[in-house]
């Protein structure tokens, strides 16, 4: 079985205003720090890719981006 591209979530720390929707939409991956800003893991599991896409699109300030790292 061949591996597809790896995907990670990246947050733009200047755009992010700690709305916290990412943690609601993708609680398996996104934790919030004590001020409500997201703490992101290295890699998004392939099974959660569509949820990660929804979390990125659901960010009120578009601070979250799903990028692939080969």
């Amino acid at each position, binding site marked *: 079985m061949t591996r597809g591209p790896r995907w990670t979530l990246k947050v733009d720390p200047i*755009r992010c*205003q*700690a*709305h*916290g*929707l990412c943690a*609601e*939409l993708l609680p398996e991956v996104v934790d919030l720090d004590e*001020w*409500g800003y997201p703490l992101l893991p290295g890699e998004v599991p392939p099974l959660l890719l569509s949820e990660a896409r929804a979390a*990125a*699109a*659901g960010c*009120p*300030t*578009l601070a979250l981006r799903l990028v692939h790292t080969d």
Partner: protein
Amino acid sequence: MSQALWYASRATGLVSLLLVTATTVLGLLGASRVATASWPRFVVAGLHRNLSLLTVAFLAVHISTAVIDPYAGIKWLDAVLPFTSSYQPIWLGLGAVALDLMIAITVTSLLRTRMSHRAWRIVHLTSYALWPIVVIHGLGNGGTDRHQAWILALYALCFLAVAAAGLLRLRATHPDTELRNVNVARWR
């Protein structure tokens, strides 16, 4: 038959008012960061989005029935080009302004992830003008409807809902916002 079209237009117009009001209130609640355990942020945001799309559907019926009905002689162009209608140019014109704003807000929101966030936000801020324009269009154009107590009560209810959510928005504060304001003041 022509009566049926006219009634359909008035009814869908009234439903559109309720939907626009609900969408506006939900938008204000979202921007105020309102959330509870049973109404998390993504529920408010999702409902805001879906009700706005439902509004578009009701508006399509509201406008097309008004145009198709021959009684008032409203043309398709009157729906998008403000203040050109021969029937109620002011009140109908405000409806056309509202429709144009609504199209701009909806299209930019559907393209939100593909466009500049700043540009999206500027367009989306015009929804603060949209709601009052819709209300004035409805009250001015409502013909005999506005003399009925329950219709007026509905408008009053809509006003109270938006006013309450607006107050909440004005009073809402968050450490992130305050910090950004402090920094702006320092560098100016």
